[in-house]
């Protein structure tokens, strides 16, 4: 085992060593390395989440309730889904479905499907509500931690909010994955409650499989980029739809000499992202409130412009604008990349239903539509030249590679197996 791997598996506590502060301690948390448990792909308990100054603090009871929900979801994905698939495949051999609606009709004949759906929906609602409640209760403490993290002029300068900014309709009309208030909850001043709730739920929903800092997609994208284009050295990177900056920080770490411009609509999310990054020692990111459909001209001349698992929460019109904006803001020879779940084409009906469930029932505004689209065509329409457009697969190597990992069934749509669609802008 490498020293790095050994460090990852080091005990969370030892009676011989000083304890790290518990996740519910009142004092601000130091950014200390977290140690996830060697439990394969079983749900990581909440307390193994990566620490930083603005992390949500949960009491032991709150943590236990959240952990119970993650186990319920793991069970629904790993044990109920395979059971339903068995029956579906038997039924589908007789009544062959011709489209996804017919496949859903067939699935609904299984009485387990309704209960599975109800529990999947309800566990998401409960998780989001409880984390947001905890974050709103801690609003003042979290705001103080944010102020402290951004106290230096250097750290404060990384955050660029625009009080005149108007959020796009798709964020106002649909609150993605059932987070009440969506990404736009903002108490003003130093409020970061929405970011704290968002990161907490992100860690719990996968659960923990995206690494202690929930940045599996960012790490996988950076690793893929370095492996696929080893000579590519981006100096200016645009991260469009950075959210709480979870994946942004991984990309910023992978390209420490680059300036990363991370753009999002939510002021509370951006404040959280800036404070979190400062606390984690990441200094090469500017967190900017702006419209990803019209990236400001001052961020032109970029070498890389990407979205990481963002577009399915927007709209077809927004996607086209984002692609056009990427083309406009890239320097000649620059690269655009867009990471999403793989498209539905030709996948078995059962898998399509499982994947489309999130589009239908988890407030993912554009999910069902985007996975039908040919994103290469969309890039071509945005001005990229056909021969310079490509697609590939990007996978997050499980942070925890325990050989006992059950992995009997993929949690479709929530597993770190993505498609990347990209294009080079023509050189000058």
């Amino acid at each position, binding site marked *: 085992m490498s020293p790095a791997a050994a460090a990852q598996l080091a005990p969370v506590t030892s009676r011989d060593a000083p304890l790290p502060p518990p996740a519910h301690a009142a004092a601000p948390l130091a950014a200390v390395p977290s140690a996830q448990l*060697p439990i394969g792909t079983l749900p990581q308990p909440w307390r193994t989440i990566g620490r930083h100054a603005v992390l949500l603090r949960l009491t032991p009871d709150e943590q*236990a*309730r959240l952990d119970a929900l993650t186990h319920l979801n793991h069970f629904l994905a790993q044990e109920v889904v395979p059971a339903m698939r068995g029956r579906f495949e038997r039924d589908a051999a007789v009544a062959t479905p011709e489209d996804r609606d017919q496949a859903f009709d067939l699935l609904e004949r299984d009485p387990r499907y309704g209960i599975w*759906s109800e529990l999947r929906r309800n566990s998401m609602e409960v998780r989001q509500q409880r984390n947001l409640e905890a974050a709103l209760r801690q609003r003042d403490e979290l705001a103080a931690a944010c102020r402290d993290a951004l106290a230096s002029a250097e750290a404060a300068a990384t955050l660029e909010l625009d009080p005149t900014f108007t959020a796009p309709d798709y964020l106002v009309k649909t609150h993605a994955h059932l*987070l009440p208030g969506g990404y736009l909850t903002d108490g003003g001043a130093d409020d970061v409650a929405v970011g704290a709730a968002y990161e907490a739920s992100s860690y719990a929903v996968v659960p923990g499989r995206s690494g202690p800092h929930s940045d599996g997609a960012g790490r996988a994208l950076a690793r893929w980029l370095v492996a696929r284009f080893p000579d590519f050295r981006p100096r200016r990177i645009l991260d469009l739809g950075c959210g709480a900056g979870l994946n942004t920080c991984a990309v910023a770490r992978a390209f420490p000499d680059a300036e990363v411009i991370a753009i999002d609509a939510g002021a509370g999310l951006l404040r959280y992202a800036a404070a979190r990054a400062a606390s984690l020692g990441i200094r090469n990111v500017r967190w900017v409130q702006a419209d990803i459909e019209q990236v400001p001209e001052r961020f032109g001349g970029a070498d890389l412009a990407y979205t990481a698992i963002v577009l399915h929460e927007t709209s077809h019109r927004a996607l086209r604008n984002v692609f056009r904006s990427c083309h406009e803001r890239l320097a000649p020879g620059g690269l655009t990349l867009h990471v999403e779940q793989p498209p539905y084409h030709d996948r078995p009906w059962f898998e399509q239903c499982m994947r489309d469930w999130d589009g239908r029932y988890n407030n993912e505004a554009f999910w069902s539509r985007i996975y039908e689209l040919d994103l290469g065509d969309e890039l071509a329409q945005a001005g990229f030249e056909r021969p310079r457009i490509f697609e590939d697969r990007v996978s997050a190597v499980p942070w925890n590679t325990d050989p006992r990992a059950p992995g009997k069934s993929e949690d479709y749509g929530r597993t770190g197996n993505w498609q990347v669609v990209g294009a080079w802008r023509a050189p000058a």
Partner: protein
Amino acid sequence: MSAATPVTLPELAGPPRPHFIADAGQERLWNVVVALSTELAATRARLDTLERVLAERGTLPAGAVESWQPSTAAGVERTHDMQDYTRRVFGALTRE
């Protein structure tokens, strides 16, 4: 285990809530089951903590449960226990 301050959440925007179970009462019953399962899980975690703390120290100083952190081995055991527990409570869902 102090009582939490009530908090008002923002409204959830989006399509109307789907109903997967025709009978509204049954739907609520399942929501209660989920909530109960998380409450019982919290109780179980507390008991487990108490038992382990008592076994380790023989006494229970104030705040011991709140500040106790399981070792890696205990964390692994708890994770497997939690998996078994989830199977026991929701096992009916895997049966035809």
